[in-house]
């Protein structure tokens, strides 16, 4: 049976992390599984976890009054969800909902923040990796906002 450290080692977000760092943060993690349609977190909830997605499909959603939940990004195995664990006020900015059966390693945000304060190299690694992913998502969002598939071809 794979340990939390093994599962983190396999995930691309942690590929450049040293074994010592992985060992250090593995204690913050636990396995979680979500069924299709199940909410992992809702907008405004405390951002208690960084979700390391192992497999499945998790939707990043916003509720559109009278029209339901609008999915603005789907996250799959190999991606992460729940950046707000590292950014004050540590509150989820979107709903997170499993579209398919999804398995994640959930790293406790409070535990991670404490370890980042103890080990600045770890903190820098996690912030650098998070910034890389956040930047890509920001670029993607800007392209989506351009509505390039609109009427003009």
């Amino acid at each position, binding site marked *: 049976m794979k340990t939390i450290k093994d599962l983190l080692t396999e995930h691309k977000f942690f590929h450049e992390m040293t074994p010592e760092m992985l060992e250090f943060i593995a204690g913050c993690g636990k396995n979680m599984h979500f069924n299709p349609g199940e909410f992992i977190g809702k907008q405004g909830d405390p951002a208690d976890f960084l979700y390391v997605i192992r497999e499945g499909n998790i939707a990043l959603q916003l509720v559109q009054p009278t029209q339901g939940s609008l999915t603005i990004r789907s996250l799959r195995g190999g991606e992460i969800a729940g950046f707000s664990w590292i950014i004050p006020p540590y509150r989820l900015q979107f709903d997170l909902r499993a579209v398919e059966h999804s398995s994640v390693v959930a790293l406790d945000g409070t535990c991670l923040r404490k370890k980042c304060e103890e080990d600045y190299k770890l903190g820098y690694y996690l912030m650098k990796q998070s910034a890389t992913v956040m930047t890509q998502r920001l670029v993607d969002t800007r392209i989506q906002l351009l509505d390039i*598939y609109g009427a003009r*071809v």
Partner: protein
Amino acid sequence: MAQESDHAEVNRQSLQRDIWLPLLYTVKEKKTENRGIVTLTLAPSAEEAIEPMEPGQFNMLYAFGIGEIPISISSLWNLQSTLVHTIQDVGAVSKAFCDLSTGDQVGVRGPYGTRWPLNKAKNKDVIILAGGVGMVPLRPLIERILNDRSRYGKLNVLFGARSPENIIFHQDIISWQADPTLNFQITVDHAYSNWRGHVGVVTYLIEEANFDPENTIAFICGPEIMMRYAVHACLDANVPTDHIFLSIERNMKCATGFCGHCQYGPFFVCKDGAVFSYPQVKIYLNIAEL
């Protein structure tokens, strides 16, 4: 080799015809793809027909009394003399085509433009990246590859659309999703909860593709912003620069390189394109004035 000779013969015969003279075609079938997009099947009204087309080429379609527009061939599955064109209602002339009924007549001249370089894809993995109605000129390419599947390596078709309601070619998509020789992935920019597929920009589907970068050819068509990002996604995945091809859209009027409306740096898109290799157009893709 024989295929090259056939193409040369087609080109020779095309030159012998009056390039300005539209031939009469009749709408045999009209299919609504979604709101504002229709697919028309056209058959010659008389014996004379235009020359056989190749994936990537286009025709000038004439709506009598209204105007003429360039439209890519959208299917070559039926190799008879019928033409299949998919048209989005974006202006007066395209609206006229969308409003046609079976039995109506249109003018057709063509075929024009360069073709997707399928010969370069032989024995190679293929990535086809389509955005929105950019799938239209790519569908004949997919059909050709599927029709001769053993000549190519892994085939990846990555399709991005605005929303689930804007997806076109549903029957083909169902067929492609069921085809074990093809890795078909689709994403939309946004969707409501009844959509269970991917949501996000089309370039992120590259990670879902199976290919050996050095031995891969990429064919891209969509809005130009999407194509720029798609090119970079391919380059980031180590696809060689000269293995990337894109179809550029510009304001084409004459389709023969005379009028200059579609000038693109040293090129006329109608005559030198619309399919270009990335190295040909690399320096022009970021020039806003072109």
